[in-house]
């Protein structure tokens, strides 16, 4: 298999670089598949091509994207964080419980929840980085532990009654979209900026790729690994808080639903924009691609298992397509050279 010998003779720079760049199927393949899907739905599904559809598609993924970014941050740091979904759940439970049972004002509650998330992330970091337990075990264990403690403390029932102003704020519409989705985009952009446009972010990505080289270059790799776990916990907690804002309630039982889609989004996202590397824009593309398909099907009246079939099939086929096309173009380039 010599196909990974990409790109070295590829001319860079030049006037047409930008246009040629957009035609780069390897980088933008999934984007095109997504656009095609939108086009197809727009043509064949009567109620699809409407502002309200796009508002729903955009707005409904606020929390899922944040959780996926949490997973990506951990993965970039070379860590597997399986506790994200539990943190979402417990952050939600804690927000509602502190705000209602304990009567803490919502501001203090949120600060407390985020502080607890930092502490939890630091615990993961201590066990994984300082002691050296693989993070996949650490977070599987600590996530289960956290969930158990939370259930013992506040029960497993859905709880409502959180500060009405907070709920109103989270769903306050700006240009037809709830504030929550702007939060998600703000987090995404900030993360993109840090990862791509600051020395810290670059060092972080490098350390995730080859820790030893980064260490010898004087980068405190352990700190960055620890930070990745802390930030992953913080992002997850933010998602949990946001979810309370959106639903007005905490629902501990369903948090587990966030885990697999988050990993699917992270890995699917790593096949676009920066193929082979976890990246922030890729996450957005991946998650919106998947939800677009499901939404279109629902508009066509397909629900239930058909949705599962579509979700599964599109996940596989989308990546399959981009890979095959990218490979064919590469081979053609090879033959031409």
């Amino acid at each position: 298999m010599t196909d990974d010998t990409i790109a070295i003779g590829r001319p860079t720079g030049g006037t047409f670089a930008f246009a040629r760049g957009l035609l780069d199927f390897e980088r933008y393949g999934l984007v095109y598949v997504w656009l095609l899907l939108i086009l197809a739905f727009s043509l064949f599904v009567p109620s699809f091509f409407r502002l309200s559809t796009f508002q729903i598609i955009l707005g409904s993924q606020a929390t899922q994207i944040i959780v996926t970014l949490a997973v990506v941050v951990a993965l970039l740091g070379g860590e597997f964080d399986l506790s994200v979904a539990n943190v979402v759940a417990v952050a939600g439970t804690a927000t509602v419980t502190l705000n209602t049972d304990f009567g803490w004002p919502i501001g203090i509650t949120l600060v407390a929840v985020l502080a607890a998330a930092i502490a939890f992330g630091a615990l993961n970091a201590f066990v994984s980085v300082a002691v050296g337990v693989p993070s996949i075990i650490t977070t599987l264990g600590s996530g289960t532990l956290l969930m158990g403690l939370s259930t013992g403390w506040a029960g497993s029932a859905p709880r409502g009654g959180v500060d009405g102003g907070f709920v109103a704020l989270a769903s306050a519409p700006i240009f037809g979209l709830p504030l929550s989705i702007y939060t998600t985009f703000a987090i995404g952009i900030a993360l993109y900026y840090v990862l791509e446009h600051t020395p810290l972010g670059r060092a972080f990505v490098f350390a995730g790729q080859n820790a030893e080289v980064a260490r010898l270059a004087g980068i405190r790799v352990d700190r960055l690994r620890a930070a990745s776990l802390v930030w992953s916990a913080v992002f997850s907690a933010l998602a949990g808080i946001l979810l309370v804002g959106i639903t007005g309630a905490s629902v501990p039982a369903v948090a587990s639903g966030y885990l697999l889609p988050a990993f699917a989004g992270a890995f699917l996202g790593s096949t676009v924009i920066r193929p082979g590397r976890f990246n922030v824009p890729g996450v957005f593309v991946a998650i919106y691609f998947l939800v677009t398909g499901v939404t279109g099907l629902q508009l066509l009246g397909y629900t239930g298992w058909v949705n599962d079939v579509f979700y599964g099939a599109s996940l596989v086929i989308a990546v399959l397509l981009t890979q095959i096309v990218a490979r064919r173009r590469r081979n053609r380039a090879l033959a031409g050279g």
Partner: protein
Amino acid sequence: MTAAGLAVDHGAGGTPALRLAGATMAFGGVTVLRDAAIGIGRGEIRALVGKNGSGKSTLIKILSGYHRPQPGAVLEIAGRSYEFPIRPERLRAAGLSFIHQDLGLVPEASVLDNVLVGRFAGGRVAPIGWRGERERVRRVLARFELDVPLDRPVRLLSPVERAFVAIARGFIDAEAQGGVLVLDEPTAFLPQEDVGRLFQAIRGLAASGQAILYVSHRLDEILDLTHTVTVLRDGNIVHDDVTANLTEDQLVRHILGEDVRTFYPALAAAKAEPALAVDGLSGRGVADVSFALKKGEILGVSGLAGAGWETLPYLLSGATPARAGTIRTEAGRTDAAALRPDRARRLGIALLPADRQKASGAQALSLRENASLPVLGRYFRRGLMRRGAERAATAELLRNFQVRPAIPEAPLRTLSGGNQQKLLLGKWIQTKPGVLVLHEPTQGVDVGSKQDIFRKIEEIAASGVAVILASAESEDLARLCHRVLVLRRGAVAGILEGDQLSETAINDLSFRGHGAGGAAGGTQ
């Protein structure tokens, strides 16, 4: 010994053991090997030489079935011809065995697995006869006087031990199959005294009728060991001759395509200001080492394998924690035991490690990302990474250090071994350190580039940087350094300078009390 005395069986007389013709290979439109042809007869030791990136490893990877050449290539092994693409195990069954550049070992796997996986005796799901297999590995390793626990993961071995594990694998194949043994820069990781043992083994194989293809940048080795030479330049075969017909100078001319005499740059005098003071440094394999270094001074560090000189660079730069001692530079003073790489960098100490596979670069990241890692802050202005500036600086660095191809966005893994080494040297020199610690900086680098690197080292020293050059190449050290520190059994055996400094003096000091060539190849 030269080809003259040997019965080399190739050409019209018998079928050659190996014949490759019409091999062309391109990566992403760039042809790196053009219509290459090579043949080796039974009992022949053939050298394959060329500059970094000239296509040697590529040719070898075609032979091993790893790369698929463009249509038209012809391969014959012992008279039987094979169609490309060929599966690796078919090639192995046909009698080809390999020792790849950068060794091709799995660090987490044990010595035993690294040597034997894919070559266990018996059927695929038949029980492995552990006793016999262990014995087999132990026997080959013993031939190189290597005694390592077979269950130890390779990552815990020293570079020399690792090299021999890879060599052992090649020999096991060669002895089992007979045919052709291909060695791609096997001596890059080996100190002088171990090279002898390897050569003895290679000659033994050749004498028994094996064909050998041998790649190296060390011309003395080529002249000493091989019968015939094939020279690659920019992907083309430019010369094919009997080694005995060539002088070293002629060989260099064929390789570089120009007339270059081996030279060492003239040394500028060291400055008076102290740059580094090491006091009572102890750690893995090193006990109570003290020395001082002035600005602009080049200090060689050498000794026998396992004598401690290989760990000194890592102790000095905090990569391996020390037990005791203090280190002082212009920027400050620190307890060696508390030294970590980030601290070392703040003290102005930079390290170029020898271990390219593990410790030098992120293979999947671009040349730009690899090169700018230690100096990211330079490109961060007004809240943004100036990627344009970064790219320009990388391009400049690639040009300066003659890295080819000079494409900043290409992934590091697409560079040939020697070009990677040049890039990484450039990466550290650009940080303008106070003390530059180099471990085998010219390992795997062609003769032309080697001189360029020496010139660079000399230049940077002349600009006031203190350089520590840890190497087993005593000739280079003798010619390039102001002083050479020789370690023996972890302690300072002596420091040579001025008239005392010569290749023989370094070797004498290294060996004194051991008896020539008798030292074990392992760790302390």
